């Protein structure tokens, strides 16, 4: 299933583009799965509101209308408070891309990643997208990471000619869902906005936690492989 919204050249067999955000935002494609997820949120939302009303009826809580307005107003306050940091770090992210630092890091990591992805290593296009995806994640360049990851999985799919996920695809997915990020800037911005003494002092804890979860994910993948022929 290839979505028509994806530009030609982005998928398998296309011209191997260099790293970075050369894919337009439309590469973030409207999947049916995405609709399903949005439907899940619709149920979650409705369920939460029903729960609130039920509890309020039982406890005779204060004015919920006032609470709703206060919550909405606080969201804007929070969003605007985060804007400064998000703009700063997005700017820094683009600088990392244009300075060639991301590409340098990708080259540096490529031998290590080659061991985890022995099949992908044989194809330069897959490997380029894969290393780009991992480094973009490391550097917190979310908007660059997704199109690169999609390109890597597509290329793997085209080479394997299958509708079943390969071991290396699962490995890449786990590395993406476990979020290995050197600078969790959004969380730090949130902490700063809410008055933390040192917003970035959670860094070592985040690194250790991420390392543990990636390791657990990859170990689980290696163990579970046997049950899924």
């Amino acid at each position, binding site marked *: 299933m290839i979505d028509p919204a*994806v530009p030609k050249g982005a998928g398998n067999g296309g011209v191997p583009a260099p790293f970075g955000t050369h894919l337009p935002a439309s590469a973030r*494609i409207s*999947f049916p*799965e*995405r609709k399903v*997820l949005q439907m899940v*949120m619709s149920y*979650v939302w409705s369920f*939460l*509101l029903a*729960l*609130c*009303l039920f*509890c*309020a009826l039982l406890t005779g*809580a*204060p004015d*919920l209308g006032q*609470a709703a307005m206060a*919550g*909405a107003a*606080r*969201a804007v306050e929070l*969003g605007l408070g985060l*804007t400064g940091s998000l*703009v700063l770090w*997005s*700017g*820094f992210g683009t*600088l990392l891309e244009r*300075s060639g*630092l991301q590409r340098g890091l990708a080259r540096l990591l490529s031998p290590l990643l080659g061991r985890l992805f022995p099949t992908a290593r044989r194809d330069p296009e897959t490997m380029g997208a894969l290393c780009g995806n991992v480094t973009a994640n490391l550097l917190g360049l979310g*908007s660059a990471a997704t199109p690169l990851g*999609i390109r890597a*999985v597509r290329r793997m799919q085209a080479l394997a000619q299958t*509708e079943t*996920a390969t071991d290396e*695809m*699962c490995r890449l*997915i786990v590395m993406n*869902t*476990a*979020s290995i990020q050197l*600078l969790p800037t959004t*969380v730090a911005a*949130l902490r700063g906005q*809410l008055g*933390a003494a040192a917003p970035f002092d*959670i860094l*070592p*804890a985040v690194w*250790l*936690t*991420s390392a*543990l979860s990636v390791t*657990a*994910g990859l170990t*689980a*993948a290696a163990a*579970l492989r046997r049950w899924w022929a």
Partner: protein
Amino acid sequence: MTGFLIPALLLGVSVLALGRRVDVYSALLDGGRSGLELVKSILPALVMLLTAVELLRVSGAADALTRLLAPIAAPLGLPPETLPLVLIRPLSGSAALAVGAELMASHGPDSPVGRTAAIMLGSTETTFYTVSVYFSAAGIRKTRYAVPAALIADLTGFLAASLTAKWM
């Protein structure tokens, strides 16, 4: 220590880029513009979800939920307040941000609960969304063990977050 880290990082990358004749300031401005777009795109979701979170708090539903979930959280070593965050994190990134912000605001960003929430947010991802985006873009129908393995990674992250929040 981390007080110098951030400006030093900004300076270091800027000087490195300058050495390669990169227009540093334009890069910062262009990237900043996309950051503004990001804020614009998440703000509506943040409004809806923080409204729901505030309603949950005022109506007493949040307290009831915490008390209900406490017997599950206690043996795992998790602060019961963070369980709603654990449940919503794999589904929706902006909902997790809203719940995390509420936890940090009501308990204090430097409290054990606030720090645990921050570490959880920083070291996990919107798992179901990521899996569905990657696999459906590539036309993969059978995802095999990708979801269970990713969820094991998430669970490890959540459990480790409460430990690292205590120790580090």
